[in-house]
């Protein structure tokens, strides 16, 4: 059974993007209960992220929380937008490469004059690329 991977982009006040990725099929999946639980775990890790955000000046914050057998890894952009990944123990290097690729897409998206900073991301193209990156790095 594959543990689905949950990827959330959180802005200053609210989540901007959410994708639950089942790496075997690359589509959304999973039953409701575990999905809700996963979101809860990710959001509770936000406090830990805030705490460690100011102590380091690197963007990649590694694993900030471990719950059961799942880990939360975080990446912070220059504008303090948090990319958070809930996964079942993927290697650091692959997670870091995934974050870097999504970071590139995020910066390109923010170059769009019609995208306002810190607002939900609705671009389908962005979502497709994030899923493709997850498929290539995290499966």
């Amino acid at each position, binding site marked *: 059974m594959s543990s689905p991977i949950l990827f959330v982009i959180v802005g200053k006040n609210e989540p901007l993007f959410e994708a639950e990725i089942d790496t075997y099929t690359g589509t959304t999946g999973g039953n409701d209960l575990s999905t809700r639980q996963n979101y809860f775990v990710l959001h509770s890790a936000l406090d830990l992220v805030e705490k460690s*955000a*100011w*102590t*380091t*000046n*690197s*963007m*990649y914050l590694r694993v900030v929380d471990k719950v059961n057998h799942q880990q939360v890894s975080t990446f*912070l*952009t*220059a*504008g*303090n937008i948090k990319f958070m990944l809930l996964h079942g123990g993927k290697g650091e290097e692959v997670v870091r490469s995934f974050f*870097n690729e999504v*970071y*590139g*897409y*995020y*910066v*390109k*998206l*923010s*170059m*769009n004059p019609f995208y*306002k*900073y810190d607002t939900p991301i609705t*671009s389908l*193209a*962005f979502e497709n*690329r994030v899923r493709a990156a997850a498929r290539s790095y995290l499966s």
Partner: protein
Amino acid sequence: MSRAAASNILDRPLGRSGGRGGSSSEGSAVSLSAFAYVYSELVQYHQGRAASISELERRLESAGYGVGLKVLELVAYRTKETKRETRLMSILHFVSSSVWKALFGKSADSLERSIDHADEFMIVDYEPITSTFVSVPPDLGQLSADAYVSGIIAGVLDGAGFSARVTAHSVNVEEGEYAKPQGGNVVTGLPARKDKAVFLVKFSQEVLARDAALER
């Protein structure tokens, strides 16, 4: 008019470490006159809708704010892809050198700390392009057309988590303060300016408290 397969913006290269997708020899340079025309239209647009000097300045500042947020992400991505700024002095250096270079092609002329107030800093630019072609009529008094740039600075600082109030001021240049050939501005051919733009950055209390806590 046909267009070759419109590429999604997510596929276009962003350029790294100073190399950009522009075609001019310097990288992506936009002509100064094009910028000056667009900027003058922007100022006129807002002037027609603002009732007072401070409202006009506020409008210019909010126009620049959005630019600042995006410039922060872009410049950080291009220059140091894995580090963000967490300290006050380093974010100020980032603004006065990297951001200024990306926007204006040169570093800001100086970064100073105010003696009277611990929370105030000044970024000085002797020839800001936003006011090079602007002459302020007497009835607009203290207006600084560089309010757009102070909006950009405020956007960069806010995005990085250092909320600050940034204002633009025109200050007279002292004799001998600034070594430029007597012929005036080489690029535009205008006579040397008598005033420089000083951007006053006043950080909020919580930013200073957090920075002081990090010091330890």
